[in-house]
């Protein structure tokens, strides 16, 4: 109910602003809706959204897997931490644009370059977060698993992983929002399709209606994925915690 209200307020503000600024600069909601329907009719909307989502999924999975593994290693092995730390600081502070441009120069305007660039941008956040989680692992529980001779893999799955879960969830959450932002830039700069590419075209043609049509659909998809996939996952992870009164 509250969500609906906040959505209505958003629409009303938009419509009011469109009336004030004129349809040239800010097209009113019906015009954008018409553009969305037209793009959907031709199939271009779903194709571009699909391509972008596939890139997001690939880059996200790659960065999370690698990032969690490296983060765990750095949290456990002091030598790895000392070796990796300078790289981590550089990667953390390197602007996304630099990584994307360099990736396209070195690997060509290819799909691999785009996905690698997005993944590299997200990687350090996953590493840092999981490393933090690994550093605060409870040694008391480790000792318990050792005494009871719980096999290594079982101990990792049932003793270590649940302790890391909130950190992995945080890394996933903040990483996902980063990927949403970066994927469009990567597409704008070097891919012939995807939401980012379409927005680039709309920018060159000064087609604000189309620009908004793609951005808003993209935002809607992000919202749906966050509520349908990410939030239930977080709730599942924390189901053992006593409910707050």
């Amino acid at each position, binding site marked *: 109910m509250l969500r609906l209200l906040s959505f209505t307020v958003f629409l009303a503000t938009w419509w009011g602003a469109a009336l004030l600024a004129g349809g040239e600069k800010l097209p009113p909601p019906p015009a954008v809706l018409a553009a969305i329907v037209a793009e959907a009719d031709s199939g271009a909307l779903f194709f571009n959204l699909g391509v972008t989502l596939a890139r997001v999924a690939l880059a996200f999975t790659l960065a999370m897997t690698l990032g969690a593994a490296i983060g765990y290693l750095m949290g456990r092995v002091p030598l790895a931490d000392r070796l990796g730390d300078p790289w981590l600081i550089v990667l953390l502070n390197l602007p996304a644009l630099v990584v994307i441009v360099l990736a396209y120069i070195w690997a060509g305007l290819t799909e691999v370059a785009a996905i690698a660039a997005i993944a590299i941008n997200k990687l350090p956040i996953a590493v840092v977060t999981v490393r933090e989680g690994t550093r605060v692992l409870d040694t*008391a*529980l480790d*000792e*318990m698993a*050792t*005494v*009871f*001779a*719980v096999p290594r893999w*079982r101990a990792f799955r*049932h*003793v270590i992983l*649940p302790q890391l879960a909130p950190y992995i969830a945080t890394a996933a959450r903040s990483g996902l929002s980063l990927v949403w932002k970066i994927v469009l830039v990567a597409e704008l700069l070097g891919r012939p399709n995807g939401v980012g590419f379409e927005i680039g075209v709309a920018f060159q043609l000064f087609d604000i209606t189309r620009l908004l049509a793609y951005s808003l659909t993209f935002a809607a998809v992000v919202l749906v994925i966050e509520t349908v996939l990410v939030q239930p996952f977080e709730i599942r992870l924390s189901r*053992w*915690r*006593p409910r707050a009164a």
Partner: protein
Amino acid sequence: MQLEVNIARKAFTNAAGERHDVLADFNFALGSGEVGVFVGPSGCGKSTMLKIVAGLDHDYQGGAAYPAGARIGMVFQEPRLLPWRSVDDNVRLAAPKVDDEKLSALFAVLELTAHRNHFPGELSLGLARRAALARAFAIEPDFLILDEPLASLDDALAVRLREQIATLVDSRCATTLLVTHDVDDAIRLGDRLFLLSHRPARILAELPIRTPRSARSEAEIAAIKADVARRTNGDRAERDA
């Protein structure tokens, strides 16, 4: 299962870089199925000794010998349950091959049946300790290590839990190491008492109790208690002198 422990020296380096001896010339042996109870002042190094015997601490001089592959069940000073698993799952993690019927019986003895599906966060300390005991017994250990399992429980509960431990120890015939600072618990549970000194911990005296646990009379317990008090006071006098 025979247990033989010879710790020549165990030292800690504190944050200021000073080395402190925690254990020195700490030697004892326990026969198969025997319950050895260690009584000593708090902070004397009892838990450190248990960690060494359990194979969790290798940074010491000496050795602890028991048959390879011996199953160890341990109850730590804190329950150390996995908060994200129910009591039942906590036990099953340590004892994956446990027989369902035996496990139910064990939960019944420890009065945990109603709490099998609760998460540790929903348990009181007393219940959590019992869950930790259930875990240690569920693996049918050859060698049982109990680190102050009755500390900070109210008297009535401690007495009940002590009886439960005695029942379980007798039924399993596991060689047991129990650490406590409560002399009464020590005498009621142990077959062999070891009185410990202050740091660095040494064994001041070894007192075997020949009467079986269930047959010990209050008078006998009182007599042993007086003996223990006399010996430990001697240590204090020696230290103060």
